[in-house]
């Protein structure tokens, strides 16, 4: 019992620290890309900036606009944050560090992260703001469409390993990471693109679309509720990168260094790649993004699934 509480608390602590670190990292990476310095005043290289931001957000007045749908307005931040925290249950940080190695771990992660879209849509619907509504609508359409290629690409890994347990998948990559095999490399590509769309990042940040919808579904949120959306966003980024690491990049496996270090190195590598994309590419349009999901990615994932299945039974 105590062990479980301790594991839960340390997980929560890790999530908070990781989100803060990611926020700092994003600001530094973007500054580096844009010939700026980024935050410099708070601590070494502005390392305490996220702390200052968090304190500011905690102290801010919690504003609720007129005419909101109270229930969905209040519940939306929780619906966004809680699933992303729950997804940590089956992330294998090392051979021993895993909150719980479910035998349906992958299925669990995929299903629990999909709940996020509900929260985003509730936020868009409840805010009584037209920009938020448009953002929520876009988000629902986007996340549901990109779920399909995402799952299809994940399915190839399951076919390869024959298990849904995250530890099982990592152990199956002993010696050779899955990304080294061509059909799984393609699956990795599809997964990465779909995952970018899942977590609403550029070039798929259409639900937020700062230059079009101001801030999309979280336009009206302020203070702690906004902080929850923010934390959820960065936690989700961490999760999709962690899943990518686990499924395709060998998870915690690697020579010399301990498993946790390898896992975090790989995960932050994937995150850095996502950040690089975010600060370089323009945004796609809604219809272009949808047709890309259904016409290109889903087709590609299906063909990939078919071909690799055929290779396996042959």
């Amino acid at each position, binding site marked *: 019992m105590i062990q479980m509480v301790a594991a839960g608390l340390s997980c929560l602590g890790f999530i908070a620290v990781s989100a803060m670190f990611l926020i700092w990292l994003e600001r530094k990476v*973007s500054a580096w*890309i*844009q*010939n*700026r310095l980024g935050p410099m005043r708070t601590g070494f290289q502005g390392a305490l900036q996220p702390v200052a931001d968090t304190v500011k957000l905690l102290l801010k007045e919690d504003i609720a606009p007129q005419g909101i749908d109270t229930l969905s307005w209040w519940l939306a931040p929780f619906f966004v944050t809680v699933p992303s925290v729950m997804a940590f249950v089956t992330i294998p940080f090392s051979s021993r560090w895993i909150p719980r190695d479910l035998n349906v771990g992958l299925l669990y992660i995929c299903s629990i992260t999909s709940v996020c879209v509900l929260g985003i849509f509730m936020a868009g619907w409840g805010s009584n703001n*037209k*920009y938020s509504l*448009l953002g929520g609508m876009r988000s629902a359409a986007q996340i549901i469409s990109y779920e399909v290629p995402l799952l299809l690409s994940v399915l190839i890994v399951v076919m390869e390993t024959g298990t849904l347990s995250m530890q099982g998948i990592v152990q199956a990559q002993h010696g050779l990471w899955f990304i080294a095999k061509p059909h799984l490399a393609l699956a990795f590509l599809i997964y990465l693109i779909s995952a970018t769309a899942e977590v609403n990042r*550029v*070039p798929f*940040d*259409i639900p937020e*679309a*700062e*230059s*079009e*919808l*101001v801030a999309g579904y979280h336009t009206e949120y302020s203070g702690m509720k906004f902080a929850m959306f923010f934390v959820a966003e960065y936690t989700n980024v961490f999760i999709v990168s962690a899943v990518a690491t686990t499924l395709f990049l060998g998870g915690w496996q690697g020579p010399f260094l301990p498993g946790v270090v390898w896992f975090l190195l790989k995960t932050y590598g994937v995150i850095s790649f996502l950040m690089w994309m*975010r*600060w*370089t*590419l*323009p*945004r*796609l*349009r*809604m*219809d*272009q993004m949808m047709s890309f999901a259904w016409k290109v990615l889903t087709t590609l994932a299906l063909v990939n699934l078919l071909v690799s299945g055929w290779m396996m039974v042959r």
Partner: protein
Amino acid sequence: MNQEELIINMGPQHPSTHGVLYLELKLNGEIVLDCKPHLGYLHRSIEKIAENRTYTQFIPFTDRLDYLASMNNNLGYCLAVEKLLNVEVSPRAQYIRVITAELNRVASHLVAIGTFAQDLGAYATPLFYAFRDREKIVEIFDEICGSRLTYNYMRIGGLSGDMTAGMDKSIKDFIAYERKMLVEYNELLTYNAIFLARSKNIGILPKELALNYSVTGPNLRASGVKWDLRKDEPYLLYDKFNFEVPTGIVGDAWDRFKVRLEEIAQSLRIIEQALGALPEGNPISKVNRVFRGTGESYMRTENPRGELGFYIVAEGGFNPYRCKIRSPSFSNLAVLPELIKGLNVSDTVCVLGSLDIVMGEIDR
């Protein structure tokens, strides 16, 4: 199913309405059915102020019209008054006018490119690149005339001061630097697949419509009309320089972007030639600060955003009797509702960004 129209008030506080423009969009889902622009949030009645200032006193107010191209506004106003009074301007002053006006055109186009990419969702990176380059021009201006945004540099009959020593070297350095950077813009934006998908064939402005709406500047040239006042009705010294007039083919958002990018290269060419031929002499204006004028004059100059016209009526007083400012952005914005009908909200932002308006000169 009962379909309702959604009315969205885009602006006056919105990240990508380029100031304080307020668009009333009527949407069906995300498709724009109708668009009604509302102006006037920046209206300072500068034309009335002109009637209450002497001719020279009004020059700083022209800075506040198109605040991204203050030099060009100064130039347009001074040329109009000089046309009214038939004032001769010394050759050195004319050359420096060409150099500063073209440098400011480069600066203004850089902002246009950066903000357009920002509107397409490239988070701030192209904008920062553009401002990094613009900073170099702004520093040159700071050295020449002591300010970074509102220059108030030109005077009727000349300039307020000579170019400081060593300036031509830093301008030459900038030209060499910017030529390298133009390649980078092409790599980062122009042929990026997402950028192309977002801006190609969006907001097509046909030639006839552009002329009928009196659209001018890069927007008109992007529609395939080879029309540039510097070439077709040369004022100042523009007939002495070699430069091309870049034009687009279809007149979509991408063409407008591309024309601006190419114009930067042409402006650099003009600056290089002007620097090479810069004569000695005294460019400082010898005209009295206060004078009377009679008659009327209409002078058009090619601003970065199009044709800026000053219509000055003088009735013998110290002040202009009437000063009408024909601002290019005003006419360029008028065409927006025609362009975005049937497109969606994302494209609205794209088209608005590609028209490159400055509210300071629309509202005046």
